[in-house]
């Protein structure tokens, strides 16, 4: 038995899952100030009469972090940046409290210029003066060597409520993204911690003795206790839940396309060998490009309620949505109305739908049925053209080796999964246009809850070994070890796997859910003055998004 809770901005939903079915559902309003009551409210009915001994885990998904950022309900945050040579401060500044100090770590993680402690003291005074209690410290190449970030933190941490460190956000290179990620982490830290405290209090009141997880943007889960240091991991977990829902319904190892057709927009996601693709660099939220691993989705301005117009001899669908479909009292004709007119669905008031479509038909000088067909066809064609663009974009992703230029497999989707209002009506047309069989999961809403509830813990570890310097660094984990000159690529892979296992367990993974993939593995001879001076070895390993062991299935197709 798994308890799944989705804490939204307005409502909190809870589901109790047993044997891959939703046994019970409940909903109650979210009171952010008094979240614990909302949680108790929603679960009291749900768990009444249940044997809590059978409970295996609790998984929460929340929009707390996302909403805080989108609605600017964030704390004032000071940033200390060690930017060194490169982009000018004007292109890096994120807010009025962004401060720059001298110092530099280069691409190999070598400290080229030390920091000036007096500059840090001065900034500390400025923060004090302005009442700033949250800080982010970010250095260029700090993932290669976090020593300067640590020194700065030691100087100012006593006077701050919390300090977020850039190198902990991700093992990836991208200084501007590291800055925005660290900023967001610091700015939502209080709010998220408040959330976690209330959840833990709630768990305590029920006396649950099972792991409690939070869903992340990459469709993986993380134990709630370690999540407090990195609240930014929980941003944009909403789309992740619905994609994991599809994974839970169709556990098939093939390339596939998933479409979530809503009222205003359609979200596209792509699966490679059954695993949802991740964003190359990280997710974007409210204009902030981050380093947070997240599922790669593309949102297009076309949905069931998109406004349909006839202008300049052309049918135009969306991107505006001016209300529900005409069949439900909306002001304009929509693709949903066209589907109703064609009898593809029996929802709404058919007469109102036909009346709205007739306005377009008159302008086009065609019959209502013909017009409705054109609208449905064009809606599908437009969605499909975005899907094809996205696949082409993925297949044309730049690669940096000759091997990849000639050998890397291209995506070739073998299945289409469609969820959302119009799914049942148009999945067939979409499948035909895309040349693959189309499936609609039963009860998509339930699929989301199951998807989140069954998602396994994901993690990533990035290693740089430099045998000329004799160091192995995993910046994100604060690891800088000495290595012998004979250290090899195989040694690096072994260390990476070991560290990833440790990390995953710390984040709440069960041993049986740790399925490791080597994402990157490169080894370079370092030659100085015509002699081989050492090796530069780069390894990245990950646990991909997927379901926890023991819950695999592939029969949810209707």
């Amino acid at each position: 038995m798994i308890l799944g809770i989705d804490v939204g901005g307005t409502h909190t939903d809870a589901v109790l899952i047993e044997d891959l079915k939703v046994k019970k559902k409940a909903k109650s309003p979210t009171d952010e100030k008094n979240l614990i009551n909302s949680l108790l409210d929603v679960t009291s009915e749900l768990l009444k009469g249940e044997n809590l001994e059978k409970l295996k885990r609790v998984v929460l998904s929340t929009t707390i972090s996302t909403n805080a950022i989108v609605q600017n309900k964030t704390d004032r945050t000071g940033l200390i940046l060690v930017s060194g040579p490169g982009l000018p401060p004007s292109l890096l500044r994120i807010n009025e409290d962004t401060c720059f100090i001298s110092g530099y770590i280069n691409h190999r993680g070598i400290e080229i210029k030390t920091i000036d402690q007096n500059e840090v003291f001065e900034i500390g005074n400025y923060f004090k003066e302005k009442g700033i209690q949250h800080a982010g410290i970010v250095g260029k190449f700090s993932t290669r060597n976090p020593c300067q970030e640590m020194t700065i933190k030691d100087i100012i941490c006593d006077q701050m409520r919390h300090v977020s460190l850039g190198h902990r956000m991700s093992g990836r290179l991208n200084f501007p993204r590291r800055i925005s990620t660290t900023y967001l982490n610091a700015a939502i830290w209080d709010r998220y911690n408040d959330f976690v405290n209330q959840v833990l209090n709630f768990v305590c009141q029920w006396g649950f003795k099972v792991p409690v997880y939070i869903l992340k943007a990459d469709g993986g889960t993380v134990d709630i206790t370690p999540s407090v240091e990195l609240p930014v991991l929980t941003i944009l977990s909403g789309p992740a839940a619905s994609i994991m829902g599809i994974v839970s319904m169709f556990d098939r190892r093939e390339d596939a396309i998933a479409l979530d057709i809503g009222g205003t927009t359609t979200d596209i996601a792509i699966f490679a060998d059954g695993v949802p693709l991740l964003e190359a660099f990280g997710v974007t939220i409210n204009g902030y490009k981050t380093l947070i691993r997240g599922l790669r989705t593309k949102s297009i301005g076309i949905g069931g309620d998109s406004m349909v117009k006839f202008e300049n001899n052309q049918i135009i669908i969306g991107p505006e949505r001016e209300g529900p479909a005409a069949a439900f009292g909306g002001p304009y004709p929509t693709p949903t109305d066209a589907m109703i007119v064609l009898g593809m669905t029996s929802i709404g008031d058919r007469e109102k739908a036909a009346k709205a479509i007739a306005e377009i038909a008159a302008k086009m000088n065609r019959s209502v049925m013909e017009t409705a067909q054109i609208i449905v066809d064009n809606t599908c064609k437009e969605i499909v053209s975005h899907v094809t663009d996205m696949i082409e974009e993925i297949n044309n992703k730049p690669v940096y080796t000759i091997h990849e230029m000639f050998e890397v497999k291209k995506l070739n989707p073998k299945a289409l999964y469609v969820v959302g209002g119009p799914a049942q009506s148009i999945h067939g047309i979409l499948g035909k246009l895309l040349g693959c069989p189309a499936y609609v999961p039963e009860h998509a809403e339930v699929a989301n809850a199951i998807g989140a509830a069954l998602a396994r813990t994901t993690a990533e570890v990035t290693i740089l070994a430099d045998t000329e310097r004799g160091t192995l660094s995993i910046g994100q984990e604060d690891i800088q070890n000495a290595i012998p000159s004979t250290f090899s690529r195989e040694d690096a892979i072994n260390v990476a796997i070991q560290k990833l296992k440790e990390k995953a367990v710390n984040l709440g993974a069960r041993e049986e859910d740790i399925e490791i993939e080597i994402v990157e593995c490169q080894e370079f001879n370092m030659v100085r003055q015509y002699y081989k001076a050492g090796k530069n070895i780069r390894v990245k390993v990950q646990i991909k998004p997927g379901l926890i062991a023991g819950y695999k299935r592939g029969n949810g197709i209707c």
Partner: protein
Amino acid sequence: MLKKGRKTGLVFFPAFDWAISPTHPEREERLLYTQDQVFEEGLLDFDNIIEYKPGIATTDDINRVHICVPDAATVITESHLISAGGAITAAEKVLKGEVDNAFALVRPPGHHAMLVVHGARGFCNINIEAIMIEYIRKNYGLKKIAVVDTDCHHGDGTQDIYWNDPNVLCISMHQDGRTLYPGSGFQEEFGGPNALGTTINIPLPPGTSDEGFLYVLDQVVLPILDEFKPDLVINSAGQDNHYTDPITNMRFTAQGYALLNEKLSPDIAVLEGGYSIENALPYVNVGIILAMAGLDYSHVREPDFNLDAVKQSDEISRYIKQEATQIYSRWKNRVPLKKSLVGNARYSKRKKNIYYDTDGIREHQEETVRVCDGCGGLVLIDSTSDRGNRIFAIIIPRTSCPDCRQHGEEIYALTNKREYHYVYFQDKDKDIFLVDSRG
């Protein structure tokens, strides 16, 4: 959050699995730290910097430029097809209007590859800029093109390919050939009889700094470009003039490279040499990309930068000033020069001994050009290498006049194919490439 500038295309292909040999400067590691720096600076996140995957050039693309002995497939590796393909991709993105300019940050380089290719010289097998230029001339019909080669080594391959082409202006600024490979590129090298002045060489003394480079740019390169009025400007963007480069002796800086790029404002830049892989390339490339995209590069500096250490001497400044005056006046005098150099000759000949340092091949070549006022002139090449191959090539130039074409076709028909190992017929206008093998 981020300031917008021009739209710049970036074709990045570091060929992380290709080297000439494990410890060669042209090895896997060469662009590793550049990649680190470009990624860490987040340059690919700018809305106006767009990364493209390189295309793959074909043997037709190569045969449009070179006479490869015995054939293109033998003298190249897959990596060369990708670096040439990357240059072509960069050009196409510009010509299709998807971006305003583009930088092909690719390897291996190409500017030492000459018209005839018996093997590799100066780390180059095929000339990636020339392959790109001929591709775009064929597909986009551009007429006048200028190549400004800012690599520290004389761009002798590009010069050789366009020696007789009055529509391609090749300007090379480089360390004086008396002090560096390939030992050529003196101001007297000024183009073939029908293309005098469309080869310009600016040799610079060892120790030249930003000041000297920018002086010749302002006093020679930009004024000549203004008068030549090219449809497209290409920068052969070698990065080995840098003060930390291990195989050269100049004092150019990352700031200097960025400023040069901003002033030159090339439509397409293509990476050539540059072997200070840790201390120069990461910063020089970030500087060039920012400059091309119209973004503020003023904070791009080498971490060990010291202004006093990279100044040039007063003597060098005086020397460069004098040289710039001579080169510019030679350019001004290019039309009357033809009469005095060529006179009434109908054909003009030059003999060349070419050493392929990378592959250790020696070639003896005799090039004959038909003196012509209507086009670049029919070119005939008789070349023998110490690997035992003797070849003959007949090259009908782009936008050839009817006379040169007729002569070329007649000579091809009359050539005794048994006399050579291979006879090549290259017709640029008709995009024809024929090979006869004695086989």
